[in-house]
């Protein structure tokens, strides 16, 4: 397959807003991971090989807290499972692509790239450089994430004792800032309340098992609230 350079560059260009949005998270991730005592090679490996921001943040928090391996893997699975949804949604558009392209592009499938390429692939398929467009968006996100992770690592190393300065608080603030806008939806609010309550009660369980219990309770509460809202004849819009 000849690479359509114009489509590749268009993919990069359309991803620029996502690059700007991801940059601070890359820096915060690198800095926090170093401040939590994770070795440099492992921080860089997380960004280069896992390449899934939210699960990287969660992993730093779990590794720092001494979680068991299966808890880390299971949490990664749960947090990243939404990518299977993207994988399923893009499949019809890219069926004709050679398997090696699908293996390659799947590696870089993030929220941001999915948001950028989904419309074009759904409406035009892989004709006229759709695959190159996807590759452009993927490479831009990937290189951007590596760059800002390294910047964060350098920042974390240049200021020793960042953890004592309260940088561990930055993780809580980051998570809170991500979650809070979603709480406008009632079922999400129910999910957050249930998960937070269970996590608080189960915080002394070993290996961070409480996180798994809390996630399960949250998802069940969300589904239940969704059902209750749907069964109310004059229920408010959730």
């Amino acid at each position, binding site marked *: 397959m000849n690479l359509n350079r114009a489509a590749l560059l268009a993919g990069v260009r359309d991803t620029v807003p996502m690059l700007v949005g991801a940059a601070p998270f890359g820096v915060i991730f690198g800095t926090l991971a170093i401040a939590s005592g994770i070795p440099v090679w*492992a921080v860089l490996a997380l960004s280069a090989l896992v390449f899934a921001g939210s699960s990287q943040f969660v992993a730093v928090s779990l590794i720092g807290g001494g979680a068991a391996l299966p808890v880390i893997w299971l949490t990664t699975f749960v947090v990243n499972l939404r990518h299977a949804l993207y994988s399923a949604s893009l499949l019809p558009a890219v069926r004709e692509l050679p398997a090696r392209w699908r293996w390659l592009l799947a590696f870089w499938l993030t929220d941001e790239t999915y948001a950028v390429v989904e419309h074009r692939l759904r409406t035009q398929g892989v004709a006229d450089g759709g695959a190159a467009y996807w590759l452009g968006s993927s490479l831009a996100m990937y290189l951007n994430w590596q760059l800002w992770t390294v910047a964060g690592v350098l920042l974390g190393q240049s200021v020793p004792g960042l953890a004592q300065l309260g940088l561990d608080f930055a993780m*809580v603030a980051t998570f809170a800032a991500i979650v*809070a806008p979603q709480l406008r939806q009632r079922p999400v609010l129910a999910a957050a309340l249930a998960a937070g309550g269970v996590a608080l009660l189960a915080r002394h369980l070993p290996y961070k098992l409480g996180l798994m219990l809390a996630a399960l309770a949250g998802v069940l509460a969300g589904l239940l609230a969704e059902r209750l809202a749907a069964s109310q004849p004059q229920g408010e819009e959730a």
Partner: protein
Amino acid sequence: MNLLLAIAGMVVVTYGIRLSFLVFGHRLVFPPLLQRALHYVPAAVLTALIVPMALAPQGPIDLSAANAYLPGTLAAATVAFFSRQTLPAILLGFAVYGVWRWLF
């Protein structure tokens, strides 16, 4: 804990999920209930990480003025809730946390 093993497992799990339908799609179905359940995962997992850190940073539940995590977290959440802007929320939360620690 073996860090290399932890990361290797995360790579396998994450890449496996991304490959799932794109490469093995003809053999898979995505149950609708699972699709709806996924909607709640980020909020559930992140809140489960936030709440114990904000309310009990040292282990026991601490609602005293000495716990700067709580006002800082509430500030970040409030700003994000109303503005939907992540970065200003983090910065303001951090400012409240810092000032609180300096005061108490």
